[in-house]
Each structure stands twice: as structure tokens, then as C-alpha cells.
């Protein structure tokens, strides 16, 4: 018995060792997960929902691979997608789209105007997510199988909505109507199904681990043998793990790696680094109703006391640019000729003296604790602003808490709110109105800015967008000038989106209009 125990223990150990050795010697290590026809995108957050009508979150990385919209942004221009051409009435209230023929959904059903009407109407009816992009629409009319007409309530540039990254996708109406009512369809889709016409269809969906998509053989765009048969989105929250995976080709493409490591990766022969400005901007929203920042001179003093270029170097390692206006570079509404603030300490001190706060003051900044960049920004601002004798308290909060405080009584809220905005639809209005238009109840106007002249200008400009874009832009320019002068927020920087991808793939192009999306159809094998 005594020896038996010892023998048993030894046997178990030997078995483990033998199994290990067997695996080690059987060449398992050569079985790289990426067989030639598979491409894996390592993504940092989990999927939430999958219904194109309501999805307004991370699953954006899947949707444009499974579904298509009428039009698509490419390099800032609007290009045909499911619509091949379109016309607009002179007063911009009637938009007619001509659909691509011989497009098939994954079920085999052909795409018709009926599908467009059904999809947009369902999105409007459900009223969730980004459905507000269809607010101007009065009626969607089917003219014939391949022509669809949108009648609007007021003049509007509808292409902004038909190219949107959310809520613009066209679904297979015949297939989905069989699944029941809107809620039942949503349930069906969220379980992990799709009903699109995109180049890939969904084969397996585990929102916390991975999503597998296979190529749709009947895709209207056709296929060549360099493209990938299987596209996988793998959820890997840990950044350093994603970095290890992409450098060893366990995954082929990823983003959101630690910026400190990017210079090393640029020298790594196995991977390529792609840094493209995205349509994002980071602001310091200043509380314009609570002392001391309700004083314009104080706000301006802070604006001059901020070393913008150093901030970009320190926080983004240079992967970004100093912001020149409230609209991201590359979007319409971005103007380089606006008066901007540059780092000038003596001017800052002068303004502070003039304001009567020369003795300094204590004030509070809040930022999103989950965001490493915001943390660095907060610390940097604290040390920079201390040079003009003001004492900034920085407070890390989770986003929901930070926003809840921001929406509470402005007199008790934070003084500075570090805030990102990225477009829901590519119009300057989305930025200017969301953050600076007066609000009855605080929402995203976290500077509590209230200027009726500014409000009128942007409201008019939105309507003009559909009729006369030039005129609209000149109004936006005027509005932005007012903002720069009143200084309700500091425009800090435009970050770049940094993707790192294996040199086994080519054809990757970051499209900032569809943030975080990898269009798998565009990718090709290098060998």
C-alpha cells in the first residue's frame, strides 16, 4: 500500500510529462491558428447587441462586414454602395435613390426597394440607438423594384444619414418578417444571426469570446483568391496580450495597443503600423456658468496656459495633432483659418490679472478613469495650469458617474470635463449642436454654454446643408468663430487611430467614418 501511493504519484507525474512531451514533439506548435484563408482581428471589447436598427455600440466592428447601406464614405467623399446613383430635388426635400441590381441577401432573396423601405421604417419605428439620423424623414416610398424615394419634413442632406455608421443598414425584409414583430426580430438577430447583403455572413457568435464570419459566395462585388474565406473578430481585452498576438501572427490585425510600444513595433519586421487621423476630438469642457470659469477671461487664461504641442507629444507619443477648431480635421466644417490659442504664459497671467483672479483658485476636473489618455491629459493640465497659480483637483470617475455629475446642477458640478466626441453622422452640426447648443436640461452641453446667436447660426446651417453646402459652411464658420472667442471649451487634440497588422495581410485602409471597423473584404493575403 505504501509503495502503491508513491507509485501512483509517480505514474501520474510520468503521464503528465509524457503527454506534455508527446504534444511538444508531435509538432503542435507548427499548427499556427492562421491558416491562409483566415484573418483574425483582435478587438478589445465585447459585443453587445447585433440588431442593425438599434445597435449603437461595439458591434459596429461587425455590421459593415455583414450589412451594407445605400451609400458609403470613402476618403471624405460619398460613394455608391447599395445605391448606384441618386437625385435630389432643388429644395432638398425629396431624395431618390437608384439601387444596385442583382444584389442578393445571405438568404438568397434579391435586394429590392421594398427592403430599403422596410429597414428604414423599422429603424425609425424602434426609435433606439442612432435612429435619430432619420428624424427629417417624413415618408419612404417605393417607386419601382430598384428605385426608392425619401420625402423629408424639411431640407436636409440625407446622404449624411444614408452613409452613417449606425442605423443606416439595409436588411432582408422578406426573411426577417417571417421571424415575427420588431422585438422578436431583434431577439433573433441578437442571438447571433444576420440578414444582410454584405461580403461576409455570420456563422458563429459568442459576444464575449469571438465572432466568426464566412465569405458569402454570391456577393455582388465578386471574389478573388487572395481574399479571405473566414474573418474572425477575437475579443482580447488585454492590450499587451494583443501586442504579443499580433507580433507572433496569432492575430493579423489589432488596435488600441499601448502607445509607448508603437515606436518599437514600427521597427518590427513582422508587423506594419498604420496611423490615420480619426474623426475624434478631445475637449476640456469648461463650466461657463459657475465661478471662476464663468469669467471669459479666466477661460482664455487657461486656453493660453495649455502647452498643446507638448500635450500631444506626452499623451499620444506624437500619434495625433493639436486641434485647430471644434471640428476634427478632414471633416466638413473643419477650418484652418480660425483664430486659435497657442501656449503663452505671460498672456495667460495677464488675462488672469485682468479677471481679478490673480490670487489663483481651486477648481475640479473630472475624467473617465478607464481611459489612459484622459488620465495623462488630466495630470498634464494640472501641472501646466499650476504655472499660472491655479490649483486644479483632478478626479477619476467611471464614465457613467462622470456624466451623472456633469448633468447635475451646474453650480455644483465639475469645472472642467474631459470629453471626447466622435460623429454619429458626418455633419458639423453633430459636433456643434450636441456640445454647444443651449439645452433645457443638460445633456452633452457639458460647458452649459448658452448663446442664442450661436444656436441660430447652426440651426440655419443644418437646413442649408441639403440646399447650399457652401452657404451652410460659411454659417458654420461664423458659429465656430463665436466659439473660439467665447472659449466654452478648449480644443485639445485630434488623436490618430493606430492599427498594427501582420505583414501577411495587405489592403488595409482605415476608414475614419466607420470607427474601429476593419473591412475584411478589402484585405488580401500577401502570399
Amino acid at each position, binding site marked *: 500500500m505504501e509503495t502503491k501511493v*508513491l507509485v501512483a504519484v509517480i505514474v501520474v507525474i510520468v503521464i503528465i510529462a509524457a503527454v506534455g512531451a508527446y504534444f*511538444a514533439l508531435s509538432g*503542435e506548435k507548427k499548427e499556427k491558428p492562421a491558416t491562409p484563408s483566415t484573418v483574425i482581428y483582435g478587438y478589445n471589447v465585447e459585443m453587445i447587441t447585433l440588431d442593425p436598427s438599434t445597435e449603437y455600440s461595439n458591434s459596429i466592428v461587425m455590421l459593415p462586414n455583414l450589412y451594407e447601406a445605400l451609400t458609403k464614405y470613402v476618403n471624405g467623399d460619398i460613394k455608391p454602395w447599395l445605391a448606384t446613383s441618386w437625385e435630389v430635388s432643388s429644395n432638398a426635400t425629396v431624395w431618390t435613390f437608384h439601387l444596385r441590381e442583382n444584389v442578393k441577401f445571405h438568404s438568397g432573396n434579391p435586394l429590392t426597394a421594398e427592403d430599403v423601405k422596410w429597414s428604414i421604417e423599422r429603424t425609425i419605428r424602434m426609435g*433606439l440607438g442612432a435612429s*435619430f439620423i432619420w428624424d427629417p424623414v417624413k415618408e419612404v416610398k417605393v417607386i419601382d423594384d430598384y428605385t426608392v424615394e425619401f420625402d423629408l419634413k424639411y431640407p436636409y442632406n440625407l446622404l449624411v444619414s444614408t452613409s452613417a455608421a449606425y442605423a443606416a443598414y439595409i436588411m432582408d425584409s422578406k426573411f426577417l418578417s417571417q421571424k415575427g414583430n420588431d422585438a422578436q426580430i431583434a431577439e433573433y438577430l441578437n442571438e447571433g444571426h444576420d440578414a444582410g447583403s454584405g461580403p461576409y455572413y455570420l456563422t458563429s457568435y459568442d459576444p464575449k469570446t469571438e465572432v466568426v464570419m464566412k465569405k458569402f459566395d454570391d456577393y455582388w462585388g465578386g471574389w478573388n483568391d487572395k481574399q479571405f474565406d473566414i474573418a474572425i473578430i477575437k*475579443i482580447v481585452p488585454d492590450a499587451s496580450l494583443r501586442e504579443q498576438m499580433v507580433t507572433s501572427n496569432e492575430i493579423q490585425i489589432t488596435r488600441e495597443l499601448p502607445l509607448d510600444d508603437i515606436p518599437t513595433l514600427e521597427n518590427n519586421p513582422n508587423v506594419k503600423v498604420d496611423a490615420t487621423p480619426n474623426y475624434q476630438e478631445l475637449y476640456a469642457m469648461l463650466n461657463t456658468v459657475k465661478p471662476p470659469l464663468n469669467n471669459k477671461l479666466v477661460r482664455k487664461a487657461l486656453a493660453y496656459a495649455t502647452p498643446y504641442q507638448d500635450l500631444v507629444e506626452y499623451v499620444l507619443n506624437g500619434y495625433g495633432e493639436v486641434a485647430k477648431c471644434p471640428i476634427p480635421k478632414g471633416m466638413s466644417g473643419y477650418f484652418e483659418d480660425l483664430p486659435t490659442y497657442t501656449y503663452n504664459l505671460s498672456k495667460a497671467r495677464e488675462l488672469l490679472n485682468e479677471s481679478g483672479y490673480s490670487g489663483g483658485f481651486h477648481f475640479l476636473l473630472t475624467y473617465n478613469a478607464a481611459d489612459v489618455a484622459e488620465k495623462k491629459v488630466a495630470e498634464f493640465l494640472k501641472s501646466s495650469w499650476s504655472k499660472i497659480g491655479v490649483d486644479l483637483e483632478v478626479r477619476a470617475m467611471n464614465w*457613467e458617474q462622470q456624466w451623472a455629475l456633469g448633468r447635475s446642477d451646474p453650480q455644483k458640478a465639475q469645472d472642467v470635463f474631459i470629453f471626447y466626441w466622435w460623429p454619429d453622422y458626418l455633419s458639423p452640426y453633430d459636433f456643434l449642436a450636441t456640445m454647444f447648443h443651449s439645452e433645457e436640461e443638460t445633456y452633452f452641453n457639458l460647458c452649459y454654454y448658452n448663446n442664442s446667436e450661436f444656436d441660430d447660426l447652426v440651426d440655419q446651417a443644418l437646413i442649408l446643408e441639403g440646399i447650399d453646402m457652401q452657404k451652410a459652411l460659411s454659417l458654420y464658420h461664423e458659429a465656430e468663430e463665436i466659439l473660439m472667442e467665447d472659449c466654452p471649451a478648449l480644443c485639445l487634440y485630434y488623436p490618430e487611430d493606430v492599427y498594427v497588422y501582420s505583414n501577411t495581410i495587405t489592403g488595409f485602409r482605415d476608414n475614419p467614418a466607420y470607427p474601429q471597423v476593419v473591412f475584411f473584404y478589402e484585405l488580401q493575403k500577401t502570399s
Partner: protein
Amino acid sequence: MKLWEYIIYRLVLAIVVIFFVITIVFFVSRVIPSDPAALWVGAHPTPEEIEKAKEELHLNEPLITQFYYYLRGLLHGDLGISIRTHHPVLEDITKAFTATLELIIVAEFFAVIIGIVLGVYSAVKKDSWIDNLGRLFAISGVSLPAFWFGMVLQLLFFRQLGWLPLSGRVDTIVMLEHPLHVITGLYILDSLITGNWVVFKNAIWHIILPALTLAMYPVGLITRQARSMMIEVLQENYIRTARAYGLPERIIYMKYALKNAIAPALIVVGLSLAYTLVGAFLVEIIFNWPGLGRYATYAILSMDYPAIIGVVIIAASAYVFINLIVDLIQMYLDPRIRV
């Protein structure tokens, strides 16, 4: 007290403990200023959506009413809907828990074998180099942070040697080519039952590094415990008698000493099981293991209170029941406790 009475007494006690834990966690997680409605609707919502969410989540009602709703759901086995993922918490947790359970079982398996063997040898060869090595190993196991150790293992066995995979439970491609019919959620067991050898091999392959990392702490504990108990037992009179009778050393160690030394070591195994549940939080992040730890981390970071309470219930239950089982095993092994 009869055994079954004792068990019922302990179970009732367990339910009381868990109820208090739920109450505390519910109120603490709700008193911290946050906005569950904002989390529910996601980025860039409209005011109407927020209002709608508040109604759906009963956020406009008093906290005590919300607590009542929660308890009512709980009695029906409903842990609520996660605010972050919009999935039923129970479903999420079950799935995550099986992944963690598999990891913990394998880790404890490693820990017991390595720990007991190392402990016994250290005791027998007290103050020799084996003992010193064992001590070093045990101390580093207890004191080295799991995330550091895990990364070292990754560097060595994946980067340098290329023997073991970097992360995950099983390779995506393997799963695609050999789909696994999931029965228990423990991949190793499921693939064994269904005879899916490719996945079986792949799953074992993947679990080695995270399980070893997780085993480090219990290895240290068990080694030290087994060693000190063994040394104590070896000084007992009956061992001296056995020696005097001229019994072979091996029989003395394995038959007479180990049996008495192992009972206290088992308690440590039980306690370390609870620890590994916590340790799994970090290990799962490093190895991208889709388990309870990762789920809990996200839940806490985003103040997703139904998910937080769900995890706490699971963790508290695990603690309480592991303790109960350890006590019962101990009673079985050691007649002195039974009175």
C-alpha cells in the same frame, strides 16, 4: 448533533450569510453615484432613450422597492439582466463560471500533486538542498504576483520555446474544423465524452500555462503545510516505535506518517480553492480566459450592479460550500473532530 442536522445547520447559516452579502452589495453598489441608465443605452444616447431605460430598469422607484424586485427575481432563480451586456446575468455567469471551474480544477490538481510531493520530500530531507529549494519555491509561489509569473511562462513557453499556446481556451480554427458539442461547459470533459480528440488535445494544451500560473499560490501553501505536518508527525512516538521495529523508512513515511499529515493539508487545499477563485481574476485577463474573473472585472469597472451581485453570490456560495465540504471531509478523515 447528528451529521445531517449539522449539515442543515450549516446550510441555513450559509443562506443567512449570503443574504447579508447580497444586501450589503446591493445597497453599496447603488449608493455609489453612477447612472445605470446611461450604461444601459450606451454612448451618445438621446434624452428619450435615457428616460425609457430608467423606466425599464425601475430606476425611478425607491431603492427599497428596487431591492424587493431584485429579491423577488432571485427567488425565482432570476439574477436580473446585466446592464452592460443586456444578457441575463445567470446565463452569462453560468457560462463564465464553467470556464473558471475548469481552470481551477486543473490548477488544484497541479497544486496538490506538486505541493504534496514537494512537501513530503522537504520534510523527509529536512534542511537538505531539496528542502531549501522547496522552501524557495513555496515562498516565491505565495509571494510572486500571478500576472508576473504568467507573463514569464508565456515568454518562455510561447515566445522562446514555442511549445505552448499564448492564450485562450482552444484554437479558433480547431473549433471551426472540429466543432465541440458542449454538454457541461468544461471543454476537456466535453471533448472526452464526445470523443473529440483534436479539441481534447488542444484544450489540454491551452490550459497548462494558466493552470500552472494559478497553481503557484496553492502550491506554496500546500508545500509548507504538508512539510510542517509531516515533520510534526515524524516526531510522534508511534513513528519512533515503527522505526524501532525496523520498518522500512518508505513504509513509515507513506503509510503511517502521510496519512496523519494529509488531513490538515487538505484544509489548505479547500481554502486555497477559494483563493484560486480570486486569483483567477488576474490569470484570466493575462491568458484571455473567458471566465468569471474577466466578467467580474468588467462588471465592477462599469458598475453593472446586477452582474456584480451575481458574481458575489457565486463567489460567496463557493466560499461557504467549499468550507462546508472541507469540514465534512475532515470529519471523515479525523475521528476526533466527529464528537
